[in-house]
């Protein structure tokens, strides 16, 4: 699973990455994390509010920093 963190490198993006890593570890997912900081690429995913989370090239969350539990709820059905 490839998880991308979209955002220009602000504190929100770091918090989102932390939550996403925690969630992935909790679910036992073997995920690769990538940062996307290029604005054109970010908007290319349809994102207008950073930070955003992209899992295997599809956008799953944008505009807010979720808790690890919320990311877990998002990731869980994608593993099956």
């Amino acid at each position, binding site marked *: 699973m490839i998880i991308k963190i979209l955002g*220009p490198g*602000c504190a*929100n993006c770091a918090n989102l990455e932390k939550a996403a890593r925690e969630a992935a570890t909790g679910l036992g997912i073997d995920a690769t994390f990538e940062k996307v900081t290029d*604005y*054109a690429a*970010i*908007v*290319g*995913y*349809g*994102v*207008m*509010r*950073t930070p*955003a989370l992209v899992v295997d090239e*599809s*956008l*799953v*969350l*944008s*505009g*807010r920093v979720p*808790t690890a*539990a919320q990311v877990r709820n998002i990731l869980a059905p994608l593993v099956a």
Partner: protein
Amino acid sequence: MSVAERLRAKTPVRRWVGLGVAAVVWVVLYEVNLPVWDWVVYEVMGLDAASQLGSGVHFFFYDSIKILLLLVSIIFAVTVLRSFMSVERTRALLGGKREGIGNVMAAGLGVITPFCSCSAVPAFIGFVAAGVPLGVTMSFLIASPLVNEVAIALLFGMFGIGPTALYVGAGLVIAIVAGFTMGRLRLERWVEPFVFETRLGGQVIDSTFGLTWDDRIQMGVEEVASILRKIWPYLLVGIGLGAAIHGWAPEDFFTRYAGAGNPFAVLIAVAIGIPLYSNAAGIMPLVQALHDKGLPMGTLLAFMMAVVALSLPEMILLRRVLKPQLIATFIAVTGLGIIAVGYLFNAVIPS
């Protein structure tokens, strides 16, 4: 587990009771703020209310708490209300609108859409690439920081409904007129070309989709915490400066140089305000202290608008998508609007 998660109510009844208790605590704190500091500063510490030190210290503590309380309540309420709105929905509403009506809508939506200037660049690309006219996008980008909940909360708490309504009205007019002007100037050539080449891919996620009341309330609590964490240094410096001016600046010092008698006062205030980077929370205690010293409201509102609407960091961010000529035009047009508003207010409000 974060504080917000622990606070999370398990039943609807507990949620509303919790909000009710919070509201009562807020009202009590707000009401006892003045008598408590009167007592602590003038009785316990034994300072003289007429002395410079006494009034300065009293101003600092009383104002800090008052501003904090106002911020907490307004940020919370606004965040919960705004959770029904999103940038995605705003863009959909603006898509296909003509200039003129589009500028008016963009300015209004700029006020109610949850938005932080850190997202100015992706929002700009997203709007323009989706076909929202440049001038309409600009109206949104000007209104959003200019008429924000922190400014409204503080103005209302310190000056009441009149100046607040003037500020909001003037902010909207500036955003509409400046955006419309930039649209008329046909400045698309000064937008970095990649913006128009960006293809909008992926599905659009509406970040407000499927939120429950618990989610919205939690977002409100988180937003209060995150904004306060961000602005407290500005707030403290602002209140400290305000207290210093309040207690120590000679009575006629500011009125002599920037009072109603100086026709260049608004110009100077705006020129100082543009490069100054602060936010409404940091600037408002200063504005209040200067108002107490007799500076006219128009000059002060123009100063505050220049500080919150135009900031160097945001311009540096926008440089990614706008060429320097367009950034200069943006500053010039918005700055002129603010100056005009300052003079207008000075003319109509008796100081």
